[in-house]
């Protein structure tokens, strides 16, 4: 029975916490129309992990330094802590190029290394987590969740009506940066589960579905996290029953199916601007 095997329990523990964090962060990414930022940071995660491997330190260190650092940099390049899409495109293309450089350095300079390191960073290896890796991932993802819940109220206000929020004394710019740092941390921790190329799905799909299903911000926020967790479980279950299916694909397939259903059969909502 797979349920009792340690690798599956590790995946379940880390996966659940990561999904919750991605669901919460993703809701704000979609609300703020910053999904592209999440995409860019996921590519930065690739470079961060490989840079760390190339110089011989824990890849997780590289992940967090790179994603949070670039998240803040993107905020500086944009206005009011909101990145601009052309600047994002330029920055992450370059960083991706840097990632290939580190991949070459890593695979050519260190003998007897795992030749598929690049592939596993890109697509994740949630079934390969050790106990300590799973616990660390769960703790960090949990902290991201707590931080999102703490800033949720002002961040919601600042995301929906930035000008009014600023006039009422909400520190819009600071919130923008804090949020970007959280997106960076979330991208870093999610890389281990679904890989740097696929994080985007975990960020965008549950949040998009939740927004489609309800107008109420807090309900949508909770729904987004809930859907992400269920999709994570469904994906893990699928790939443990059908071993040929990689877990990352199972998770993404579940997330996409839920989003597609929500778009097709969900209630026809008025555009939020017209409803208010």
């Amino acid at each position, binding site marked *: 029975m797979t349920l009792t095997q340690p690798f599956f329990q590790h995946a379940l523990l880390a996966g659940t916490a990561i999904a919750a964090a991605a669901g919460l962060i993703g809701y704000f990414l979609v609300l703020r129309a910053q999904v592209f930022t999440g995409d860019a940071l996921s590519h930065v995660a690739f470079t961060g992990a490989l840079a760390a491997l190339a110089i011989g330190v824990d890849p997780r260190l590289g992940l967090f330094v790179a994603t949070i650092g670039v998240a803040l940099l993107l905020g500086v390049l944009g206005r009011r802590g909101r990145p601009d899409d052309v600047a994002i495109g330029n920055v992450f293309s370059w960083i991706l190029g840097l990632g290939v450089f580190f991949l070459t350095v890593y695979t050519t300079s260190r003998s007897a290394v795992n030749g598929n390191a*690049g592939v596993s960073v890109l697509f994740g290896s949630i079934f390969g987590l050790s106990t300590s890796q799973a616990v660390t991932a769960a703790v960090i993802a949990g902290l991201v969740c707590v931080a999102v819940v703490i800033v949720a109220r002002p961040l919601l206000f600042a995301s929906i009506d930035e000008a009014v929020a600023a006039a009422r004394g909400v520190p819009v710019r600071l919130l923008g940066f804090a949020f970007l740092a959280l997106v960076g941390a979330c991208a870093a921790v999610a890389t281990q589960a679904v890989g740097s190329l696929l994080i985007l799905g975990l960020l965008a799909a549950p949040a998009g579905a939740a927004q489609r299903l309800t107008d109420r911000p807090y309900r949508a926020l909770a729904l987004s996290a809930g859907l992400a967790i269920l999709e994570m479980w469904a994906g893990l279950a699928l790939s443990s029953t059908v071993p040929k299916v990689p877990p*990352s694909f199972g998770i993404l397939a579940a997330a996409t199916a839920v989003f597609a259903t929500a778009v097709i059969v969900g209630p026809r909502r008025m555009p939020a601007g017209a409803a208010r």
Partner: protein
Amino acid sequence: MTDLQQMWVFPFMVNAFRAGTIVAVVAAVVGWFMVLRRQSFAGHTLAVVGFPGAAGATLVGLSTTYGYFAFCVTAAVVLGLIPRVGPDADGLESALTGTIQAFLLACGFLFAALYKGLLGGVTALLFGSFLGITAMQVWVLLVVAIAVLVVLAAIGRPLLFASIDPDAAAGRGVPVRLLSMLFLVVLGAAVAGASQITGSLLVFALLVMPAATAQAITASPRLGLALSIAFAVVVTWVGLIAAYHSPYPIGFFVTTLAFAGYVLARLGRLPLRTVGAVA
């Protein structure tokens, strides 16, 4: 100089230069419109869906060329069908784009996992390789490039109008939606052609960087397009030469050079902007 001459002895380098030049010109022109229309996210998504296309084609035993075109062009049509309603549709549109991108990449990973022999080739599909480009590939690339450029030349003027002021263009009877769809398909075709050489992840660099640099320097379409092309071609050539002489991949050199150019152009613009000379 003898070094450069030596390089030309190898047919694969000659093919690499031919293919690289074609890719650079097409990417620079299509990218210029993409940057103008702020469709970088869509462009990036179209670029990466070539990967599952190629992996899927390999799995069923077809040439990767078919996979690239089938996936990139189909994805372009799907993205073009996503309705843009109301000012708040941005969130849903980007959520859909992101989900399509991540799901198709996951499919690519599944195909690669099912076809065991491909796993080592994943990196090549994603990051490209300038070695081993065949003369056949160069011909396919040339045909695609000419088709893309002809279509763009035909729709260039109305597309420019629709990109700069969609409301006014729609008011004057320009078919904005149709143009938007056509442009995405052209983008998809350009990307599919280029991905075979540069890999799915790096074609986007050639789309966005030269174009963004050119637009930071000038607002004039003619001059901008010319600058974008010149910059893309120079960056590709220098990247090829550097990659030939070093153990590091071409993608690193191309992106680093192009990014340096972009940063310089942006920095050069700052003093102008402060005096208000540039709108």
